[in-house]
């Protein structure tokens, strides 16, 4: 597996550079705004003062470009859509270095270490979860039961509602879209969401939740691997642009958009044709206002087809 040989950081914010450098230097040599770049360099760009993306793209390994954005979420999704970005960190003075370290570590890790909540929670953090093989509609109740056991005193008042909703949307997508897409090879979702679905054989949708000192995380993993970058970003883009439900057989077309919008970091791991995992993180925060004001981050990790 090819790994970056160095990390280049473009920012004129000295404090941010120092914090990023400290967090990332154990992974690879860190250089600041080098004059030339090659496709063995992982690049972090603070868009406030960095180079233009069109100047960077031709020379870069695109999944190694981490863009630090400071615009509104809707504009960020537009930007991701337009430039085929895999990683955009919503600028947050406190959390950006921590987030960059977690996400970039995955680029350096073996791919079997990408999966699950482990890369995002402190070592030794316990997670709790369950598997679903049909649409029995109890998934959300099970999520709420797990959430009740967590300690929420360092959070604003409502992350449980947000997590339950995100789980509901992601589980529905996994159960209703994944198998159909894999079997038919089509991106159409012909199953009515009111109809029951039953997965076959060993097919399962796995839900996990965990909390550490930084965040609470939700992971929903399927064994289909059909949710690719294009579907993910197109869906988010449509959600932000139109903000309307779709009247079609299948879902309302807003599940990913809502899951993205209710979290702070939205992460997709994909092994094509085998599994997809969507992870949503809500960072620990006593203030609802800060949770809502945090610019959201998007990360898409895909294993190359072999």
């Amino acid at each position, binding site marked *: 597996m090819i790994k970056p040989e160095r990390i280049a950081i473009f920012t004129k914010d000295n404090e941010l550079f120092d914090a990023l450098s400290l967090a990332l230097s154990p992974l690879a040599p860190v250089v600041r705004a080098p004059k030339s770049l090659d496709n063995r360099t992982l690049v972090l760009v603070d868009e406030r003062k960095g180079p233009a993306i069109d100047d960077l793209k031709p020379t870069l390994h695109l999944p190694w470009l981490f863009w630090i954005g400071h615009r509104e979420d809707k504009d960020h999704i537009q930007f991701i859509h337009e430039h085929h970005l895999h990683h955009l960190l919503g600028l947050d003075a406190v959390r950006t270095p921590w987030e960059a370290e977690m996400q970039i570590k995955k680029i350096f890790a073996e791919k079997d270490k990408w999966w699950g909540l482990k890369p995002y929670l402190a070592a030794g953090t316990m997670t709790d979860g369950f598997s679903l093989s049909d649409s029995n*509609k109890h998934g*959300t109740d099970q999520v709420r039961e797990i959430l009740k056991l967590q300690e929420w005193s360092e959070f*604003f*008042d*409502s992350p449980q*509602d*947000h997590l*339950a*909703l995100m789980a*509901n*949307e992601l589980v*529905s997508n996994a159960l209703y879209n994944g198998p159909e897409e894999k079997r038919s090879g089509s991106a159409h979702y012909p199953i009515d*969401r*009111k109809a029951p679905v039953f997965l076959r054989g060993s097919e399962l949708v796995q839900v996990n939740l965990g909390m550490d000192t930084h965040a609470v995380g939700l992971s929903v993993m399927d064994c289909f691997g059909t949710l690719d970058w294009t579907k993910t970003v197109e869906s988010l883009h449509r959600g932000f642009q139109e*903000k*309307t*439900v*779709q*009247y079609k057989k299948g*879902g*309302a*077309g*807003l*599940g990913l*958009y*809502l899951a993205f*919008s*209710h979290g702070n970091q939205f992460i997709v791991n994909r092994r094509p044709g085998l599994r997809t995992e969507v992870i949503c993180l809500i960072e620990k925060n*006593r*203030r*609802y*206002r800060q949770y*809502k*004001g945090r610019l959201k981050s998007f990360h898409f990790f895909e294993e190359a087809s072999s």
Partner: protein
Amino acid sequence: MSKLKIDKELLDGVLTAQLAGTIDEDADFTPLQGLSQPSVIFDFHGVTMLNSCGIREWVSFIAKLPPATRVTYRRCPQIIIEQINMVHGFFREGAVIESFAAPYYCEHCDKESKVMLKTAQVQTRKAPTQTCPHCGEANMEFDALEEQYFHFLKNQG
């Protein structure tokens, strides 16, 4: 099976429908079909979740109400307000939003409160001052971004 419970009460020609539970793809609005009252109040206080398919079900349901019916939304919980701000169509055009929950934070006692606000209390998208129900502090801080949280009121007279 629908996890949405609907209780109806008719008083002086005004129908109040209290909704509780989850509004999702299985939401069954049959008990509310064929309403003939000129005025209907939907009380959302007991609603715990509104997912994307539930919004679609709701939008389809209210589109079938007679155009002349006066519709009022009462006691919308915070999670509903958030969804409504993210997805268009939940509020029927011309409907009145009477009251809704809003997050406040008291720096004095470090507690968050959900305060039920009347729409009339929110002028030019500015949150009204509130007293902390826990410690009595007179000026709790509105704990959301006003422009974002009150977005759903933009069409309210």
